[in-house]
């Protein structure tokens, strides 16, 4: 390190160490970027816990009938059906919470046959782009869905 000459303004020791510090931080950018964690796509504890809440099995033999029930329930709850795919058993819907139009509730429902005369219905609900983890919300949904599926009382 060349010593500061008499003509240039001498750097105080505090300023020199600050400059060295800044240079070290700058050099840190040349380091290898941190590797993504190995369990990046693995479900979190939270996700595993709510997976059971999100799925329910119903005694409905016809999958299309179950899907119609899901759609009716969602429409009654004020949802706008955004996407529907019968062969895959997918329904996606969303609604804005009135009167505050800032909160968005989205739900993605899949209906899959399960065993004889039963279907498994799974609902993934999100609130403002974050997954909903409260059990009551899913219980509310499945209660409304049950009413919609078995409205004839058979």
């Amino acid at each position, binding site marked *: 390190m060349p010593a500061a000459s008499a003509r240039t303004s001498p750097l*105080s020791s505090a300023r020199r160490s600050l400059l060295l510090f800044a240079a070290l931080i700058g050099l840190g950018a040349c380091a290898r970027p941190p590797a993504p964690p190995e369990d990046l796509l693995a479900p979190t504890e939270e996700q595993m816990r709510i997976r059971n809440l999100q799925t329910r099995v119903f005694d409905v033999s016809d999958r*299309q009938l179950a*899907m*119609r029930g899901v*759609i*009716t329930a969602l*429409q*009654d*709850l*004020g949802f*706008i*059906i*955004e*996407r*529907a*795919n*019968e*062969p895959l058993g997918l*329904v996606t819907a969303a609604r*804005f*919470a*009135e009167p505050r*139009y800032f909160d968005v*509730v989205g739900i993605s429902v899949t209906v899959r046959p399960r065993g004889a005369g039963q279907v498994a219905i799974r609902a993934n*609900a999100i*609130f*403002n782009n974050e997954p*909903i983890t*409260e059990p*009551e*919300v*899913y219980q*509310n*949904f499945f209660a*409304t869905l049950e009413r919609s599926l078995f*409205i*004839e009382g058979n």
Partner: protein
Amino acid sequence: MPTTTPSSRQRRANARPRALRGPGLLLGAALFATGCATAPRTTPRELFQLAPESAAHKATQTRHFETRDSDELLSASAAVLQDLGFQVTESDRDLGFLRAAKERSAREYGQEIRRGIVAFLTTLLSAFGGGNAVVVLPVDLHQQINASLIAQPSREREGSHEVRIVFYRLVWKGDGSSGDTRIPPGEQRMLMIRDAEIYQRFFGRLQKSVFLESEKL
């Protein structure tokens, strides 16, 4: 020749009251840290419960049609939406699902007049009071009207179908200013369309279309 030397600069900096610096920094750090301490936002527990107005909305949005042909009904619904100026964007035959959208200008006289009055009054205010207090309110510029329709076999009446449609709009505002601050354009809000007349108009056309089709057979 520099007028200040490093030592004099140091002395000037120290002229700030020392007594306030330490606790001031601590207070600032504490306030900053409270941001991390706020509880995560929870969702309302009442989500997915039927609201009392749900039955009234259902009545406005639903009609029954005495037809057994679900494909024809869905096709007729798409035709009516096209007549009303919509573009059908998505469909699913087995579930009788249609989704359509149309874009229109959202400018309306009331908002433009209000904007003019507010701009005029605030200009007067700033002319007399000095400074810049001119407020130009952003007005609605553009809207997208959307429709989501489901046509299903009716469960109450055998041999008839039930069509339920919901109309809603997304509105974007233009830009404006408040004093020297510019309000950028693009503020968006969403409104459900609850006006019964629009639904009656849609179902009137659909009824006519289905009636004409069934007459042909």
